[in-house]
């Protein structure tokens, strides 16, 4: 069919991160039990408080039911058929990058995340996580000069146990939900960020998650604390090889902002999404929550979700401090048989708290894309304000988009504003662009990135162009 064809099904461009690194890994046997939880904790040489935290979570998890309220359909997950710990066989985390297995460095090179001194990004510090383990963190010394701690969470447990004990589970309690409980029991690694009072983090921080093993679950845990008047911008990226079985990814991210602090958390999620028939791909069940504990604090979530077979994810803000601000900017693109149920929760507790929600859902192929958002205004949130905008774009006529906005207000004078729209890329719009010499795919991608502009503008500069390219790539070779 020539490119003049009508807007038809979209078939994704081959996923270019689908390779597997051949590296010896240490894995524990499949299955989950109290012994497995103890084994993980022992392997990581954890202090008693953390083992207790894990065991409590595990027992809570046993009592809980997998949630079924999302607009998602997938066969049941067999939790005994998953490996809960896998690590590349290199004993200790290396002090110097020269000692890291070159195969791992090569893997990250291939993913566009060079870690070596010469090639690494100039103004971004990176923590690279491979399967369950953080393998390298760049610019640690430079950050330490400013009092900023940026390291893997395992390392933080060893070096800064008092901070971990104080903050872990303080935003997302271990019994918060089914997947959070599971994560709390078996989490492997992730990043820890601590910005002390009054410090503006001198560079972008970024964690890159790479799943490599086929039968391993990925349970990372990220904790970011910004003390009074501190600020940080953090970005996470993720990819996985192509396997034709589904893999479970259940992460927990907790953010804490004290008085006048600000945390900007951006995600570019590109886990393997499965093939065009819906075979394989990551099941992404993630709990992300930020707590604006202090007055005038601010937490901003920006996400570009393009991967995963299933996405279940609601980055949220609890606005406790007076005049605190929560933001959520999201682009979720689904194609082929992907399913996404994503959105946010803005919980207004303190007076004059403000929140903004901008959600852009793009559904192509036979995919399904739902926005689910809750704006809750408590009795003390005098003068609270929320603005929500949820836009959906449909490409082709086989895709579905839904919007489920929930508003619960116990404050009669709160201002809550919700706008929603749905549009479809029309044949006439594409023809118009084509008739001016713009190729069909470029025309689609121009319209899609135009649709997402409000969100891309929120991404750190270095990554906005990346996100734009990523969307174009996901739709490439696709229309016609």
């Amino acid at each position: 069919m020539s490119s003049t064809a009508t807007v038809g099904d979209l078939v994704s461009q081959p996923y270019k991160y689908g390779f597997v690194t051949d590296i010896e890994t240490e894995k524990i046997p499949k299955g989950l039990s109290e012994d497995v939880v103890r084994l993980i904790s022992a392997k990581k040489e954890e202090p008693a408080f953390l083992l207790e935290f894990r065991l409590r979570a595990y027992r809570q998890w046993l009592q809980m039911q997998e949630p079924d309220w999302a607009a998602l359909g997938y066969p049941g997950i067999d939790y005994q058929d998953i490996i809960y710990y896998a690590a590349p066989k290199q004993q200790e985390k290396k002090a110097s990058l020269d000692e890291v297995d070159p195969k791992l460095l090569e893997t990250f090179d291939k993913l566009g995340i060079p870690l070596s001194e010469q090639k690494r990004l100039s103004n971004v510090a990176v923590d690279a996580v491979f399967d369950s383990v953080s393998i390298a963190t760049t610019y640690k010394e430079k950050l330490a000069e400013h009092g900023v701690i940026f390291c893997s969470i395992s390392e933080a447990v060893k070096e800064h146990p008092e901070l971990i004990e104080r903050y872990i589970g303080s935003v997302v309690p271990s019994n918060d939900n089914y997947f959070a409980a599971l994560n709390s029991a078996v989490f492997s690694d992730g990043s820890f960020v601590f910005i002390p009072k009054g410090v503006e983090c001198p560079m972008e921080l970024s964690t890159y998650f790479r799943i490599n093993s086929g039968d391993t679950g990925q349970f990372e845990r990220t904790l970011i604390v910004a003390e009074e008047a501190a600020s940080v911008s953090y970005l996470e990226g993720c990819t996985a090889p192509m396997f034709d079985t589904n893999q479970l990814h259940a992460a927990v991210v907790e953010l804490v902002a004290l008085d006048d602090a600000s945390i900007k958390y951006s995600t570019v999620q590109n886990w393997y999404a499965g093939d065009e028939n819906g075979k394989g791909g990551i099941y992404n069940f993630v709990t992300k929550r930020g707590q604006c504990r202090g007055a005038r604090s601010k937490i901003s979530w920006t996400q570009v979700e393009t991967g995963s077979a299933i996405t279940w994810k609601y980055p949220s803000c609890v606005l406790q401090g007076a005049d605190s601000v929560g933001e959520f900017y999201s682009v979720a693109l689904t194609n082929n048989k992907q399913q996404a149920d994503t959105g946010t929760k803005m919980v207004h507790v303190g007076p004059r708290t403000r929140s903004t929600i901008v959600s852009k859902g793009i559904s192509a192929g036979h995919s399904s894309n739902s926005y689910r958002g809750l704006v809750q205004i408590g009795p003390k949130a005098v003068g609270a304000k929320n603005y929500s905008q949820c836009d959906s774009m449909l490409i082709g006529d086989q895709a579905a988009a839904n919007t489920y906005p929930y508003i619960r207000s116990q404050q009669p004078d709160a201002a809550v504003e919700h706008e929603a729209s749905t549009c479809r890329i029309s044949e006439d719009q594409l023809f118009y662009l084509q008739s001016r010499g713009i190729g069909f795919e470029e025309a689609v991608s121009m319209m899609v990135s135009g649709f997402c502009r409000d969100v891309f503008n929120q991404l750190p500069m270095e990554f906005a162009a990346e996100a734009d390219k990523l969307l174009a790539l996901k739709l490439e070779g696709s229309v016609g």
Partner: protein
Amino acid sequence: MIRPDAPVLLEIRDLHASVDDQTILKGVNLTIRAGEIHAVMGRNGSGKSTLSKILAGHPAYTVTAGSVTYNGENLLELDPEIRARSGVFLSFQYPVEIPGVSNLEFLRVATNARRAHRGEEELDTFAFEDLVRERLAVVQMDPVFLDRSVNEGFSGGEKKRNEILQMALLEPLVAILDETDSGLDIDALRIVAGGVNQLASSDNATLLITHYQRLLDLITPDYVHVMAAGRILRTGGKELALELERTGYDWVDQELARLEGGRTPVEVG
């Protein structure tokens, strides 16, 4: 300007086309040489816009018979974007709105696509700013329209000016202007007509689709064609338009009846 020895830019031969199994064009013949200005007139629904969209390559229409040769090439084989890059331009009767896509960026990408095709250097944002400001003058358009989304919220007349701005940037060889005059106020009509005259040269050609003499007072056509029921029924000079102004289209029915009646019925068997 008619020059019998000028190269033929567009040659339409016995063009038949349909949409959703409904035949709309029933044998259009038209030859356009470099330097010429043609006007196509005709009743509502006679097939003028259909012809223009088929020339631009709209996917909804199927050509069932006939041929179109553009600059020696089979036009119908080319994708719409290739037609545009090689110099075919359609100013739409109803330009669509494209929310979210910046007009300036759109104009730049389009201009560069055409330039690349001509082997010219692509323009960066700064060089393009200069060019676009110069071409804005052709249609006396306010630069604020560059910062908006393509046609979004533009008034009818503003959309038409934006079309001619695109024409000024793309420098087509064959420009088809589908009712560019409708929706324009008196001053705008004069400005747009002035722009079209300014862009017309001995190397390119213009096909004006219009209902009104007032446009042809400002842009003098070399040929006037009357379209009816999917074909060109009559061709004349600029005086034909003046005659239509007096007589209307009543004669068309008789002419069509004569044509239909004179046709040998096709045996079905």
